């Protein structure tokens, strides 16, 4: 399968196999007018299988959201057909309005204007907890 190179845009490589649609939705790539290629189950030397997303436009990407969803991802910024920058991700210390607190007793359920903020409390197990009620983010 051949998918052409992009000139100016972003390649999200090494996505954990099966996660590309979640990433696609989280980054709201459906709202873009440019070409977006989704490659599922590509061969990977490191992980066996991987997903890849190619975006044929230089857009702003929230790396914290990506890092929260999948630490494995490599973000490649392409300019004039060449690799301008490569970023490896890690789980961010804090995420804001990425996930919502599901605890019905949390203050965020009644005070709608509050941001849903979660802090990383266990990097090894990748546990995020609501800063208000300490419930685990899911």
């Amino acid at each position, binding site marked *: 399968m051949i998918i052409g190179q992009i000139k100016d845009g972003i390649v999200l490589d090494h996505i954990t196999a099966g996660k590309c649609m979640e990433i696609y939705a989280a980054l709201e790539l459906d709202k873009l007018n440019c070409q977006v290629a989704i490659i599922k189950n590509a061969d990977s030397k490191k992980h066996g299988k991987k997903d890849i997303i190619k975006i044929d436009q230089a857009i702003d990407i929230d790396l914290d959201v990506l890092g929260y969803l999948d630490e494995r991802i490599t973000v490649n910024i392409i300019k004039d057909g060449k690799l301008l920058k490569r970023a490896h991700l890690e789980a961010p210390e804090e995420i804001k309005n990425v996930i919502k607190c599901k605890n019905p*007793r*949390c*203050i965020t359920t009644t005070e709608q*204007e509050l941001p849903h903020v979660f802090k990383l409390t266990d990097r090894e197990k990748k546990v995020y907890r609501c800063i208000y009620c300490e419930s685990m983010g899911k």
Partner: protein
Amino acid sequence: MRSVIDILDLSKEEIADLIAVAEDIIKNPDNYREKCKHKKLATLFFEPSTRTRLSFEAAMYELGGNVLGFSDGDNSSASKGESVHDTIKVVSCYADVIAMRHPKEGAALVAANASSVPVINAGDGGHNHPTQTLADLLTIHREKGTLDNLTIGFCGDLMFGRTVHSLIHALTRYKNIKVVLISPEELKLPDYMLEDMAAHGLEYVETTSLEEYMGELDVLYMTRVQKERFFNEQDYIRLKDSYILSPEKLMPAKSDMIILHPLPRVNEITVAVDNDPRACYFKQVLNGKYMRMALILKVLEEAAK
């Protein structure tokens, strides 16, 4: 601005200082009668409470200060839909320190972020209740002479019991503490609390039996199954009488074990236990007032700096 939302907002040393101040207040109350003259405490109770609100108010009056506030969310602008954020913005224009209770978890943090004066969390849903913990710690310290090397049993509603959560948080900082968690399956301590205890090396066991570890306990902390934490009344009715402490159940207990309860009690400790010298729950109430006095003094002194 220093607020106290979680017991861990206070260091171990600060808690030791508060205990020392509370002990001094008990010995020399006259020295404190005018410490908060011309200062105002706002008690904002969005959820009904007798004990905690009166304790805060008594504490402020005994320090020579004044009190304003409300005792029920229905009597405040919250009933008109005002947010915690806005209520606190307004009240911090009137008061020097705020004590707030709210049924939602995390409300105290929202208040502290909005306030220009110190906020003391007087209970946020099933989450935290740091001043009750200060009362518990002073009581344990006065009765046992130490906060280290203790086996402490928590019995009843460990899932929603904020007093339990706060006290366990506090205990993670003391040496050689063993915890026995006694609850029905449905009201077990939340996972994050178990993780926290494990991370701090606190030894714990979970059991559904009140009798199993009775003979090993230095402190037995009883709690009420709280009706207001249940969405389903059937669940409440099924669980409310899970544990009832009676003189018979206390037979295997150590002679110097102490029985604590954050109160109000419904029927989880029979009235017959009140005459047992090990029953310390009414002492705990008085100690709560002294610790709140010490805490109000501390946050006001820090705010003045």
